[in-house]
């Protein structure tokens, strides 16, 4: 098992290196740089040029690239030119926010998706089944941001049930109130994700439940005289969760890619929002760090998938 993880890591290295080259080249191809954003009548263009030079942005590309890589190797992601902070600090805060938001929404997706899929599959062809199937195909078809804006508008602004911006209320003091406030800020965005993105979970689980229902081992279990409930949970449900589990790693990673639009709409200060901002302000260090992070995360996610699969499915054993 450890060997496999290590091997996966080793394979990751050339992939990551290639990725850094691509990222770097693309960042360089984008017009503008972090200093164009500071441009105003009150700044001296020569000062900007000097700062640019001092930041090494005038060096030849290879030099810049290797400096960047070298810094990364030394655990230094650089400073954000725009936000004037070490990128690591900046990401630290944001990642936390995104992770909480992502975990909560993923959790909610599961808590909504699984029971509905179960209800649907166990009553195949019933009204309930058709209702949830239709619900999922419709919610799956609406562009995410339309839903987000709608939810924000209705529950945030019109009904005033939830906070509409930020990750925590400035008025909250003390450990528990802060925690509570953070959670309160998460609910609406997380719920918006959850209510409208169960479609893939729902479909996979429903299909595999239907398949598992007629599996031979289910018949065996029934022949043992096992109760229906147990047959369902121990055999049908558990085995049907395999395909769901098989995408768990990617779902986790999806938290970060899905964050871009979600966080932008809800004014939630996470990685996704930071990413969009870093693109618009050409804050390359931040942008590249986020890319690198999400790329690495994808790799780890796919590895996690393998590990989860080998863990839940004894047939896939990692030597």
């Amino acid at each position: 098992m450890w060997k496999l993880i290590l091997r996966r890591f080793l394979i990751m290295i050339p992939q990551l290196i290639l990725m850094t080259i691509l990222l770097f080249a693309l960042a360089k191809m984008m017009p503008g740089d972090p200093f164009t954003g500071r441009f105003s009548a009150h700044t001296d263009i020569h000062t900007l040029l000097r700062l640019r030079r001092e930041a090494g942005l005038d060096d030849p590309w290879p030099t810049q690239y290797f400096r960047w890589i070298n810094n990364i190797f030394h655990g230094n992601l650089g400073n954000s030119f725009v936000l004037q902070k070490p990128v690591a600090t900046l990401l630290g805060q944001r990642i936390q926010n995104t992770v909480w938001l992502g975990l909560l929404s993923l959790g909610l997706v599961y808590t909504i998706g699984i029971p509905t899929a179960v209800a649907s599959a166990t009553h195949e062809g019933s009204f309930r089944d058709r209702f949830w199937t239709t619900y999922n195909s419709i919610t799956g078809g609406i562009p995410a941001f339309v839903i987000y804006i709608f939810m924000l508008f209705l529950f945030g602004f019109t009904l005033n049930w939830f906070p509409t911006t930020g990750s925590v209320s400035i008025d909250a003091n003390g450990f528990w109130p802060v925690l509570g406030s953070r959670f309160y800020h998460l609910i609406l965005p997380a719920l918006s994700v959850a209510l409208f993105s169960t479609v893939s979970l729902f479909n996979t689980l429903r299909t595999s439940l239907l398949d598992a229902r007629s599996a031979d081992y289910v018949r065996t279990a029934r022949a043992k005289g096992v109760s229906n409930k147990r047959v369902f949970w121990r055999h049908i449900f558990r085995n049907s969760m395999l395909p769901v589990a098989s995408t768990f790693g990617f779902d986790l990673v999806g938290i970060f890619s899905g964050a871009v639009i979600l966080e932008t709409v809800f004014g939630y200060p996470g990685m996704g929002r930071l990413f969009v901002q870093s693109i618009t302000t050409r804050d390359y260090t931040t942008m590249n760090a986020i890319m690198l992070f999400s790329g690495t995360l994808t790799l780890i996610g796919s590895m996690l998938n393998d590990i989860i699969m080998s863990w839940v499915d004894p047939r896939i054993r990692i030597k």
Partner: protein
Amino acid sequence: MAKAKKIEQSESQAHAHSFLKAAVREFKRDKIAMISFFFLVIVVFGVFIGSMFIPRDAFSNVDIMDTNLAPFTNGHILGTDDGGRDEFLLVVIAARNSLSISIPVTIVIMAVGIFLGLMSAYYGGFFDWIWMRITDYLSIVPTLMILLTLLTIINNYSIWTLVWVISLFSWIGSMRFFRALTFAERENDYVKASKLSGSSSLAIMWKQIFPNLSSQFYAQTALAFAGNIGLETGISYLGYGLPYTTPSLGTLVNKATDPEVMTQSPWMWLPASFLILALSVSLIFIGQALRRVADQRQSLA
């Protein structure tokens, strides 16, 4: 030789014929799929033919005196947008543009996906390894960023730019899908039997394995097509949509980004949203029916 071709043709014709028949039967049986099908046909034809009669000025010219009109004012059935353009005409043109994007993108995705998927799984070994590393790589690079960068760099941004830029990345999923299917299919003895019958690898892939993937192929194509209709909404949302003079369903839906427009001027984004939704949903139903047609064992009829 020429004659041989002819017969083969008639055979494939016979096959196509039976496919059509099966399709008709299936759609007759599945009323929802039938309605979806007619809806799709009407929309596609309506939009492509209708847009031929709409002069370019009608949707590219700004009329700043007539902006933001509610439906049924000044003869605008669906009102006007913030540039004073007739919303109805806009939706028609936008639908045409969006379909003009999603159709080629879908074709590219499916064609490349099935081609590489088949080859990769069939040949396996090093060829497969290389392609899997390439797709691994492409799936870890942040697609969004590359898209945005490319769209920033590219001149004269048009429908075709969008088509190829998007196609650049989206074949990966379908390739993986078909690769997995081919791997399973390859294990069947009929592949061995074909080898022994002297068929070349290419012939085995396309004439033997491919038909067995076709039911999935139809379903996936419909799904991909459905997914691609609203494709540029995300890109538009981040501010990289098509230019003003090339309206698309994505850019129209994106007007909802402004909460004010969303609530105060729903006519600017609702029709486009409904159209996307209706097209996607009907395509999903059609896809399911087509899958049953291609795989007669699943047939409802």
